[in-house]
């Protein structure tokens, strides 16, 4: 019986009313009185020496207030990187300066070199055309392996090479892994590319800064997933503005997918420029700029080896990965191929030893950072592809090969050989569920039907695990994080019982305003509509770390639970006073405080009113008012997992792949709002299918991004997608957070790419193309056709 409110109810998303009626308030909707407009002059070569920038003609043009170059930022710091990785030899990664505007050299197409601030957008744009750049083009560094060759041109002259770090994990296990592979009964090897993607949120990035000369206060409105992080990074490391003089507001944000986590140069630019020109400054990215200046995702090249014994039990995994950092280190970039990737290489399996080597490389391309899943899709893709290949080589059922190697339900908590401990899970349950949902047993018959129509049908299975609920601060601190990753919430109860929750999490599509309210409503037993969720403004929310890594309900939700528990405890004290009873006898149910074993009760609203109108109140024992704050730091990651199945038909004449069905059986632990969870899985799967079949960044040999518009970068559309079959009935609640939740935001994008590619390879093998071992994503008709005809 579906609930009609509280935890577990599919409450409709209240925020959709404003989004669907055009009443959202996005950053570009914010116009500050007297605002000016910024237009960036960006490098159109990938690598070059800046001989000079002539701004004189531009500065003489109508409406131009100032043309900025790097000389205007001499006192500012570079854009900081939030994570330091230590390499195999104990050395810190190479960390080049990331200037706000290019200094001395340009390092990727789109690198901002100068910026015009003018009265109107048109004037700024026109004047930007008149800025004369004198740049000597240098040979670009593009291919990662070539970038590490002796004598390769360097992206950063001050570094010793283009190698950011050479990371080994777990370094102590290297010999054991080498030995296990050497002595294995079977070793299955696969080389693959995890294709570079552009996040493409519907709303491009925007930043509006307003400096107040009278007070010395700065306000920055920006399209961010984490306004407090931007305030800290930009204030403390770039512009030297103390937090109490800097307010950062991330209002309605139209999607992020990771690309709006990072502190970008444009944010620091408008903030500084607003003070210099003493006017508000607005910058709105065009879609063309977004393609070359938003951080990209993925871009790994990997060789993976899986060793198995004679009983087909996994004995070791060894990987060798090149990870593209792009031209500069974006905020979290170094952590993605390491701690969000290496720690997942055990997957759902009992592989005893794992060794992951990652070489992170600077190239003359747009910086690369987290994109939905971030490191975990890369890990899952390698592992689930090589297991599929192993099953084929060994002639065993891919589901059975996985099942026999799974960690068993009774073996949790399970210490993996890659540093993390899975608290709970049941992989057999999700696998069985997915096989049942997709009628695995009936597949052969369906394949025959396809064959009769001249099509090749394929069944692709992938299982995944992810580390979410990011993250235990003391652990990530040891791993190189330069920030804590707790979350915060303030719960403010109003006199008549309504509640405002101010959360450090940020909602940009996740539906927090609905699901967070459900949690508080459930705890107190009042209507969801009595609760309002505030987020996105550093002026009225406690210091929080924002939303990414499927962390909001697991970490932000837990902070909110802790703060609400404090509220309830205090309210019970007040209720005990009002009813002249012992606090320990007070029970709260359905918004009523009652004395156990009696018929005495007071309503929630009576207690909250007493807190603010304390005429009859234990003032000598407790303060008036009802407002509490909590900070929650998780003790472990959460580990959502699931089994994904894709069924495809390949046209052997053209290579075109049609996705006939996609099924997701996830274990997210407890679920707050099933409808929102389904929506998150739908979105993630759509992005995963997009990566597997359509999306790709292509640079030419000069470092020009060729797939830099929607004419060439193929976004998934509705007709590329089947109807999704989504289930989350397999629930092993998280053992260490108060809600038992694991997070669901990234799962779809993590589990789906290998399921799609496994299905395509299966279809080709069934069609007799048994020499096709792998096709790199995106599996376009051209690539599939070429593989069939190779």
């Amino acid at each position, binding site marked *: 019986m579906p609930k009609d409110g509280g935890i577990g109810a599919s409450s409709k998303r209240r925020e959709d009313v404003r989004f669907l009626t055009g009443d959202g308030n996005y950053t570009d909707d914010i116009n500050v009185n007297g605002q000016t407009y910024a237009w960036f002059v960006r490098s159109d070569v990938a690598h070059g020496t800046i001989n000079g920038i002539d701004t004189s003609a531009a500065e003489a043009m109508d409406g131009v207030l100032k043309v900025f170059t790097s000389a205007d930022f001499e006192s500012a710091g570079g854009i900081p990187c939030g994570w330091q990785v230590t390499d195999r030899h104990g050395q810190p990664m190479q960390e080049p300066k990331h200037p706000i505007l290019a200094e001395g050299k340009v390092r990727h197409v789109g690198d901002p070199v100068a910026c015009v601030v003018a009265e109107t957008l048109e004037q700024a744009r026109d004047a930007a*055309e008149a800025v004369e750049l004198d740049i000597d083009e240098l040979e670009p560094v593009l291919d990662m392996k070539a970038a590490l060759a002796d004598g390769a041109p360097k992206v950063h002259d001050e570094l010793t090479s283009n190698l950011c770090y050479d990371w080994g994990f777990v370094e102590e296990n290297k010999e054991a892994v080498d030995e296990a592979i050497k002595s294995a009964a079977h070793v299955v090897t696969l080389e693959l590319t995890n294709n570079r993607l552009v996040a493409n949120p519907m709303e491009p990035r925007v930043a509006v800064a307003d400096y107040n000369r009278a007070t010395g206060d700065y306000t920055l409105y920006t399209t961010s997933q984490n306004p407090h992080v931007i305030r800290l990074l930009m204030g403390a490391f770039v512009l030297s503005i103390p937090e109490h003089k800097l307010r950062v507001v991330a209002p309605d944000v139209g999607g992020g997918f990771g690309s709006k986590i990072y502190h970008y140069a444009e944010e620091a630019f408008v903030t500084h420029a607003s003070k210099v020109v003493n006017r508000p400054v607005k910058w709105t990215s065009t879609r*063309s700029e977004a*393609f070359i200046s938003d951080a990209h995702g993925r871009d790994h090249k990997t060789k993976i080896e899986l060793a198995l014994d004679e009983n087909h039990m996994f004995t070791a995994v060894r990987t060798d990965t090149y990870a593209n950092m792009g031209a500069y280190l974006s905020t979290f970039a170094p952590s993605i191929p390491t701690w969000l990737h290496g720690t997942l290489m055990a997957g759902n399996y009992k592989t005893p030893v794992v060794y992951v080597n990652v070489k992170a490389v600077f190239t003359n391309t747009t910086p690369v950072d987290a994109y939905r899943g971030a490191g975990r899709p890369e890990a899952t893709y390698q592992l689930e592809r090589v297991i599929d290949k192993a099953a084929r080589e060994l002639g065993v059922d891919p589901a059975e090969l996985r099942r026999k190697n799974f960690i068993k339900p009774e073996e949790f908590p399970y210490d993996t050989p890659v540093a993390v401990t899975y608290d709970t899970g049941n992989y057999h349950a999700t696998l069985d569920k997915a096989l049942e949902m997709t009628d695995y047993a009936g597949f052969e018959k369906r394949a025959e039907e396809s064959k009769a129509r001249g099509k090749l049908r394929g069944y692709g299975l992938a299982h995944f695990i992810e580390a979410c609920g990011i993250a235990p601060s003391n652990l990530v601190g040891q791993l190189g994080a330069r920030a804590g990753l707790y979350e915060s919430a303030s719960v403010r109860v109003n006199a008549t019982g309504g509640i405002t929750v101010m959360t450090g999490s940020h909602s940009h599509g996740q539906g927090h305003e609905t699901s967070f309210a459900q949690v508080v409503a459930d705890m107190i037993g009042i209507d969801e509509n009595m609760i309002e969720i505030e987020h996105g403004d550093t002026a009225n929310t406690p210091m929080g770390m924002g939303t990414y890594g499927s962390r909001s309900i697991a970490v932000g939700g837990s902070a909110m639970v802790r703060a609400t528990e404090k509220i309830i405890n205090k309210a019970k004290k007040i209720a005990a006073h009002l009813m002249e009873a012992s606090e320990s006898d007070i029970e709260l149910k359905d918004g009523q405080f009652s004395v156990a074993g009696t018929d005495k009760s007071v309503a929630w609203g009576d207690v909250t009113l007493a807190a603010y109108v304390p005429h009859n109140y234990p003032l000598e024992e407790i303060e008036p008012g009802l407002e509490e704050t909590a900070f929650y730091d998780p003790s472990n990651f959460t580990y959502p997992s699931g089994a994904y199945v894709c069924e495809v038909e390949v046209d052997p004449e053209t290579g075109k792949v049609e996705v006939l069905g996609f099924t997701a059986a996830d274990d997210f632990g407890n679920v707050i709002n099933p409808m929102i969870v389904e929506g998150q899985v739908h979105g993630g799967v759509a992005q995963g299918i997009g990566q597997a079949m359509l999306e790709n960044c292509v640079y030419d040999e*000069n470092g*020009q991004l060729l797939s830099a518009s929607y004419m060439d970068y193929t976004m998934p559309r509705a007709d590329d997608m089947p109807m999704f079959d989504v289930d989350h009935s397999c629930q092993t609640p998280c053992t260490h957070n108060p809600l038992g939740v694991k997070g669901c935001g990234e799962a779809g994008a993590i589990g789906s790419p290998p399921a799609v590619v496994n299905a395509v390879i299966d279809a080709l093998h069934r069609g007799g193309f048994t020499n096709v071992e792998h096709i790199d994503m995106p599996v376009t008709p051209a690539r599939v056709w070429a593989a069939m005809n190779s």
Partner: protein
Amino acid sequence: MKLSDSRVIAAPRDEVWAALLSADVLKDCVPGCQEMTGSPEDGFEAVVVQKVGPVKATFKGGVTLSDMVEPESLHLSGEGKGGAAGFAKGGADVKLEEVPEGTKLIYDVEAKVGGKLAQLGSRIIDGFAKKMADQFFERFQQTVEGPGEEDSADGEAETDEADGEGEKKGWLKRTFSS
């Protein structure tokens, strides 16, 4: 992108060579050329208006001649900056061989684009570059040979920014015959 081709021009090699070094000839032959000034020794300054796919821009840039072996071969290179549209640059190795019909002009062209041109026009840039090269050498042939020997090339009608055909043919004949 790279392309190679050749064509036979019904004119003596010296005459073809001289035409290659003439700013006026280059102005008439570079598709979309609005201005061309300068000399073979100091290089030429040019303003060219072109439309590549969705991007139309005025390119300002220079053309330099190098590796000149009179009257056999030279290297022509140019770079045009189109402001917000990005840039286009290219080079051509040109060889002139004496053949019974006149002079065989052999060229290897390499071109590249950057910025918005690459971002938005990459799918059509190969075809565009080929069209530009074909138009240039087609016009060059006609300019050197003079009017009446061949119909104008298919591509020329599309380049409405260029000067009228009739005017320049007459002009060249007069230049070389004077």
